[in-house]
């Protein structure tokens, strides 16, 4: 009978993580909207809401420690609990980055818009989809989907590089644009970091499903 309770607790752990991921995705959406629509009030709300994600991070950590101490899980159960602990940290950092984007948005909104925002929403959307797909892969234990996320990370890196070159040209042409261009390149960097966190989650999902650690392996390793 204890097994049934344990299974329920594992299912609840997955639910909590999915809820945390939903909140983190929403934070990304709202942070990007605050930047693109120049809505500082919305940016402030994102900053205020970060504590909710932090609270879930602590809650998930505690649940995992309790499961490890009381049930001493093995095999797939063990991989699920340890993976959940790590994914929760990744999501918490993703949410911190949304907070950082919101802070830069508030600063940018105090000056005229440097340029129409085209690439940043594209990178943002890609990063958000990567986060969503990595979490979907976790919930469904789908390592194929997780491996797709790993490939998508290269797209984000390419776009980020392209945007950086564009912002550099702005700064070289007109030094008055430097503070805004630097803030925008920070935003791009935050989004690129988000995609990296999604990649970490995807790698953890591959470990969960296949028992293979693919982190820090050379790029030649077949995906």
């Amino acid at each position, binding site marked *: 009978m*204890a*097994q049934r309770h*344990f299974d329920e607790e594992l299912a609840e752990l997955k639910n909590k993580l999915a809820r945390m991921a939903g909140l983190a995705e929403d934070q990304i959406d709202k942070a990007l909207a605050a930047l693109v629509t120049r809505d500082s009030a919305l940016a402030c709300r994102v900053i205020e809401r970060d504590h909710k994600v932090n609270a879930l991070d602590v809650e998930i950590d505690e649940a995992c420690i309790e499961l490890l101490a009381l049930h*001493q*899980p*093995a*095999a*797939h*159960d*063990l*991989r699920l609990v340890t993976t959940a602990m790590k994914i929760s940290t990744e999501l918490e950092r993703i949410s911190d980055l949304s907070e950082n984007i919101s802070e830069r948005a508030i600063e940018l909104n105090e000056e005229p818009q440097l340029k129409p925002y085209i690439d940043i929403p594209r990178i943002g959307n890609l990063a958000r989809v990567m986060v969503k797909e990595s979490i979907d892969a976790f919930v469904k234990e789908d390592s194929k989907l997780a491996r797709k996320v790993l490939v998508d990370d290269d797209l984000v890196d390419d776009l980020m590089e392209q945007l950086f070159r564009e912002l550099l040209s702005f700064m070289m042409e007109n030094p008055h644009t430097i503070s805004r261009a630097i803030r925008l390149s920070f935003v791009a960097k935050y989004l690129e970091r988000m995609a990296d966190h999604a990649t970490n989650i995807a790698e953890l999902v591959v470990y969960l499903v*296949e*028992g*293979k*650690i693919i982190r820090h392996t050379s790029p030649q390793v077949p995906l």
Partner: protein
Amino acid sequence: MDVMELPHLESPEDRVWPKLLKAETRALSFSYGNRLALKNVSVPIAEYKITALIGPSGCGKSTFLRCFNRMHDLYPGTRYEGEILLHPGSRNILARDVDPIEVRMRLAMVFQKPNPFPKSVYENVAYGLKVRGLTDRRALEEKVEQALRSAALWEEVKDRLSAQATSLSGGQQQRLCMARALATDPELLLLDEPTSALDPIATANIEELLLDLKQRVTILIVTHNMQQAARVSDWTAFMYLGELVEFGLTKQLFTNPSKKQTEDYITGRFG
């Protein structure tokens, strides 16, 4: 590490096998009456390592262990097939020309419940040595002290060596049985659920002892306690219905078993 080194132990294809063996069974089958209790079991026993046998009740793990010292020979109507090789020398201890007494001289066994002889602490440990013909008092005393030290019991009993063994606590009695087993310098120590009758502290003492002992003696342990197998063993064999389901490095078997049956058993979903 005495295994065939592979850079990563990540997938079932990467599974490793012990290289230096103290013993191994080859296609071992065992039956009593009409009942086939072991079916074609081949397990390597790595030298100076702890190999754990796990599996649900009735899976044949104790039967397997008892084949090693030919304990089943004491009962009529039993039948072995296959081989149990003891290395070095690859001596098949099931061969017709092998005397079970000779086999038992090379191995030692400790059972689930402590079973000291109704004699003094000293006599319990000295017994096997005397049977082997050691009579010199000083040499006997030295060996007894050495065995009691190996079993982490010396400090507790050095002032009461003439006390009855049954006056010791359960945990001490079990360590005394270990000392008795170790006194004759066995090549292979067979343990049949040695801590199942002990409290957690006595269990922890025995587990610590096993980890120290494996520097000197190869250990094969049957345990119902999966956490114990995970904590102390280097290699684990999972048996079910008299067959070997999976054998592998303990750290691999408990984190990423290759068979679903193993996964279900170690995660408590059957058995």
